[in-house]
Each structure stands twice: as structure tokens, then as C-alpha cells.
């Protein structure tokens, strides 16, 4: 908020550094790490048959890009370009000088876990960009509220939800923060907080409904019921703990899935071995399966065995943030999916630049592995959280950077906590937004501390 009037030449350094960072990242990771999810997005784009298991908006983007250049290069260009440019814009707004913003951006993108997160041409990368756009729009709205700025905030929030439906959890604190000043003016703090929470929840539900409607009507995507995998995972865990098969028979697959087989393959950190197994034994995760039966079985199992469910989810939460789990897939995904190589004849290729190899070696160095684990980032998040929060509020004309740092951290923690409760695989890309948000919050907090210490 304090360097908007910086002279043009000085301000230009931020964009120069942003462009350099973008080129460095793009060529280090070209054409972007491609996963099985993107394979499905691409299949939908090429076949024209669409479902809402992955963002129909991204399917459309991939469809438009393929005739120009086959492969992930164009989606990666757009996703990475947006993420880097918006991070630069946010840092420029929050740090005291363009030089500080340029330095902060370099520190952010070259930090190994963030560098790795920005190498993936996944919906998580687009989600990072959308969330940064939401924060920037929210700051502009809080600085000078108006209908146009509110519309921009709502549009960016809708974009984030269209990219990842679970963006709802990252957006909730931001929506409540936006509602807070107007509500606080005339009410006591606890009532204002409750009303802000309720208003934010209503807004998020509205955006989710609009997203569903857009998927069905605008993008003509059929319902995929992506929640199935989480329900199958929970039911498998409770079945194992209670030694009673609670999965509906229709979900046990053509080759069957007896309880001893389930116990042998179950991994509290991921449902992959149950759903995408190498042999014929796999649980049925399909759009045309009986969803009502699965929902009923899941609800009944949780009601009948709440202790087992809570224990399993606590263990998954621990694994999700890297406690008792330092798997490669949690630290970072460095190489393209094998399906990418199948397209080699059409100009695709696996990633593997020298810079990427360097970061790969760093992530595998035993003494540095903790740097990539989400618990370390959450521990770092406690610094801006402990030092921020004071000030701002209804009376503030402009939002202090430390309040924005707290907002970013709360959004990251809210997203991580909800994913720990609702997801079914502890993988690194789910931590892309938390890494970027906490990274920016830390830079802003440290810059604020350094500046204040110098003044003192």
C-alpha cells in the first residue's frame, strides 16, 4: 500500500525481475510436470466428453491450446505467467520499496519447495494464480470499497472455485475478512465475527452453486462425483479398524476385494493403491456407480464408528502434513507422468533440465527433506500469525501488510486443514497454495520487522 507512488523506473524493476523469474522457471521446467489428472483433462479436451471431476474451465483452456501447440507448454505458460505476475504485484503492494518487492519475489520463487510447486502444469498452479488474484482484488476493495471492485472480487473468487472446488476452504477466511469492517462498525466484536462468518459461508455456498451450474450448463459437463474416492478411503479405513467389511458389494470390483486384501494394500497416506491398483483388484470409482448407496454406507459407517473415523482422519492429517510421511510424492513431483512420454511423437517431452535436476537433488538430500514437508511450512506460518493481527479493522483506511500476512496464513491453514479432512492422497501439489501464501506472508513479516528494527 505504501509504494504505489514509486517512480516508474524504480517500479519497473519488479516487472523486470518477475519476467526473469518467469523465464527461469519456464525453461527449467519446460513443458511443465504433467500428471494423470492432466491426462484426464486432455482426454476430455480431445474427446469432447466432459465431466466435472476436473475443472471444465481448464478442459476448455487445454482444448483451445492443443491446435496451436500439442502438449502442456501453452497451459503451463499461462498458469506460470499468471502466478509469477500476480505474486510480483502482491509483493509490490505489500513491501516498502520496488527493490524489496523484487528481492522478495526472487526469494519466493527460488525457495526450493516453491520452485518445485511452480513446475507443475496442474490445476494447483492455476489455483495459486487465482488465489493471488483474489487477495489482490480483496485488498483493492478494502482500500476503497465500491461495486466495481466488489464485482472483481466475486469474479476472481468464482474463478478460483471453477479451477478447484475445494478453493472454498481457502476463500472462506478472505470472504469473512472482507465482510468484517462493515459489520464491526455497529456491533460488538463476537457478534460481528459470527455475522462475518455466516455471510462468508453464504457467499461461498452461492459461488459453489454457480460453479456447479456453469459446469452443467455452460461447459456441458456431466457429474463425476469426485467425493467418491474420499468416501471409499474412509470406508476402507473403518472396515480395517473394525474388521468388518463396510464397503458396499457393488464397489468391490469385478475381482472382489476381501478384507485381508484391503488390509494388505491400505496406506493411511493415500487411497491410490485401492482405487488405481496395478492388478484387477480395485475399488470401483466411477461416475455411473450407485452414488446413493455409497453416500448411505459412508454416513452410516461414520455414525456407527465415530472413534475409528476420527482416529483414521487424525492419522491421515499427520501424514498429509508430512508427519510419519516423507514420501517423494509429498516433497515434490519432479518428472512428467509416463503418459506424457506416450505423446513424444507429437512434440511432447519429459521435463529434466539441469536446474530441475539440481532441485531434485536438493529435495533428496537427507538433511534438507524437512524443508519440503508441509509441517515445516505450517510451523513457519505461526511466525506471521503470532506477530500480526493487531491494527487494521474498521478504522483502518489501508490494510497494514502484517494484517495481509495473517490473512494469507489463515487462508493457507484453513485450506490445509480442510484438505486433511476431505482429501484422499497426501501429495505435494495440494500444498502449492499454502507454500506460496506462507512464503509471501513470511517475506512481508520479515521485511516489516527489519524495517521497524532499523527505525527503532
Amino acid at each position, binding site marked *: 500500500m505504501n509504494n504505489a507512488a514509486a517512480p516508474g523506473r524504480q517500479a519497473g524493476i519488479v516487472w523486470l525481475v518477475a519476467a526473469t523469474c518467469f523465464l527461469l522457471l519456464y525453461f527449467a521446467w519446460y513443458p511443465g510436470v504433467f500428471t494423470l489428472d492432466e491426462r484426464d483433462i486432455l482426454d476430455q479436451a480431445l474427446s469432447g466428453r466432459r465431466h466435472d471431476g476436473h475443472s471444465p474451465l481448464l478442459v476448455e483452456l487445454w482444448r483451445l491450446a492443443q491446435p496451436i501447440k500439442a502438449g502442456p507448454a501453452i497451459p503451463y505458460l499461462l498458469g506460470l505467467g499468471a502466478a509469477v505476475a500476480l505474486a510480483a504485484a502482491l509483493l509490490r503492494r505489500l513491501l516498502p520499496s520496488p527493490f524489496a518487492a523484487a528481492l522478495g519475489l526472487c526469494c519466493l520463487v527460488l525457495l526450493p519447495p516453491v520452485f518445485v510447486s511452480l513446475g507443475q502444469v496442474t490445476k494447483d498452479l492455476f489455483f495459486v494464480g487465482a488465489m493471488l488474484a483474489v487477495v489482490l482484488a480483496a485488498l483493492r476493495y478494502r482500500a476503497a470499497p465500491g461495486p466495481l471492485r466488489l464485482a472483481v472480487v466475486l469474479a476472481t473468487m468464482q474463478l478460483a472455485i471453477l479451477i478447484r472446488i475445494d478453493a472454498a476452504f481457502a476463500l472462506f477466511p478472505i470472504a469473512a475478512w472482507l465482510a468484517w469492517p462493515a459489520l464491526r462498525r455497529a456491533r460488538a466484536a463476537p457478534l460481528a465475527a459470527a455475522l462475518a462468518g455466516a455471510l462468508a459461508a453464504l457467499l461461498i455456498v452461492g459461488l459453489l452453486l454457480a460453479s456447479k451450474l456453469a459446469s452443467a450448463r455452460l461447459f456441458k459437463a456431466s457429474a463425476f462425483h469426485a467425493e467418491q474416492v474420499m468416501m471409499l478411503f474412509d470406508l476402507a479405513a473403518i472396515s480395517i479398524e473394525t474388521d468388518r467389511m463396510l464397503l458396499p458389494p457393488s464397489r468391490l470390483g469385478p475381482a472382489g476385494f476381501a478384507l485381508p486384501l484391503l*488390509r494388505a494394500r491400505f496406506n*493411511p497416506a493415500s487411497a491410490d493403491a485401492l482405487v488405481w491398483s496395478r*492388478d484387477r483388484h480395485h475399488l470401483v470409482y466411477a461416475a455411473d456407480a450407485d452414488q446413493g448407496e455409497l453416500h448411505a454406507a459412508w454416513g452410516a459407517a461414520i455414525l456407527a464408528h465415530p472413534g475409528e473415523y476420527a482416529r483414521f482422519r487424525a492419522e491421515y492429517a*499427520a501424514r498429509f502434513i508430512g*508427519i510419519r510421511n516423507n514420501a517423494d510424492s509429498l516433497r515434490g513431483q519432479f518428472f512428467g507422468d509416463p503418459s506424457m512420454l506416450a505423446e513424444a511423437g507429437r512434440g511432447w517431452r519429459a521435463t529434466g533440465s539441469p536446474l530441475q535436476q539440481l532441485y531434485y537433488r536438493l529435495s533428496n538430500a537427507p538433511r534438507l527433506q524437512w524443508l519440503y514437508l508441509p509441517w515445516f511450512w505450517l510451523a513457519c506460518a*505461526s511466525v506471521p*500469525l503470532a506477530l500480526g493481527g493487531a491494527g487494521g479493522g474498521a478504522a483502518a483506511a489501508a490494510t497494514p501488510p502484517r494484517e495481509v500476512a495473517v490473512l494469507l496464513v489463515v487462508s493457507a491453514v484453513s485450506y490445509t486443514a480442510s484438505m486433511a479432512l476431505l482429501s484422499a492422497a497426501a501429495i505435494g501439489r495440494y500444498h502449492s497454495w499454502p507454500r506460496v501464501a506462507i512464503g509471501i506472508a513470511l517475506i512481508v513479516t520479515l521485511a516489516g520487522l527489519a524495517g521497524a528494527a532499523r527505525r527503532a
Partner: protein
Amino acid sequence: MKYLFHRIHGGSFLMAASLLAGMIALAQCGPFFHPWPQPRTAAVGALYLAGDGRLATIAGRFDPARAEFSAADSEGVLLFGPYAGLDAGRYAVAWRGSAYKDSRPRFEITSASGLIAARAATLAAGTTDSTLATIEFSLAKPADGAEFRVLVGRGDAIAVHAVELTALATAAAGAP
């Protein structure tokens, strides 16, 4: 330091402390999920199949049509894995497969902390689709990375298609 102290804000400090305390609790109070019910009044099993990604071979090869690991006239580890976590208690491991020649393989149970139990078996040619060996063992404390290995010699010709791990009953109450 004095400056830092003055910056700390009560409400947000409480949030930061809760976040750290929650993570410490997840680390120190777990693991929370136990695949082996405790106590057990009946045996509980886990079935590892060749080709499921949990078992692997060095000296043998995987036959996808028969879904088995086989070795003929090669020496070394025919089967290793699945690196299971086991609670303290009594267990039995059974290897299932076939012997195509008279063979004398060695069956081992190991964990991250070393060998737990082992036995050599003499298998007659023509043994098909049956239990090749069974070992019962007890663990006084939990074990990580448990493996159920099969080692073969140059003259052996056997195949393994499954390993069944059974956690034996721990509670007598209600048992016949």
C-alpha cells in the same frame, strides 16, 4: 527482542500456539490408525498378492499371466516386501505357491531392526498352489518395515503368488 515481544498480539499468538500444539500432538500422540484391532478375540489377516506393488523380486521374474514371482536356477532373493508396520503381538506368515523341482528355499521374516525369524524348507517337485512354508513369531514391541523374504539357491525352481500374514488372537475372553 524487546521490540519483537511488543509486536506479539494476544489473539493471533493464541492461534499460532494452537497451530503448533496441534502439530506436536499429531506427531507425539500417534500413530492413531491401527490396521490390527487390539485386543483380538479372533485371528485377523492381511493378504499380499504378487503384482500388487507391495511385494517385489530380485532374483526371479514376475509372470503376469499366472500372477506369481518365479525363479528357476537363479540364486538370491525371490521375494521381498511389503515393508509392513506391525504392532506388538503374535503373528503367522504363510507363503503360497508352487515347486517345479525339488527345492530348498529359505524363508525369512525381517524388520528395520533385523532378522525376526527364519526357516529352511524342503519342497518336493509337483507341489502346486499350496502353502510352501509357515512361520509363527512374536513381537514384544512394534516393528517397522516388516518383510517376508524368500531366498532361493541355484538348483531351486519355485514360484510364490501370495503371502498371508495373520495376526493371532490376543484376548482369551469370549474365545472358545
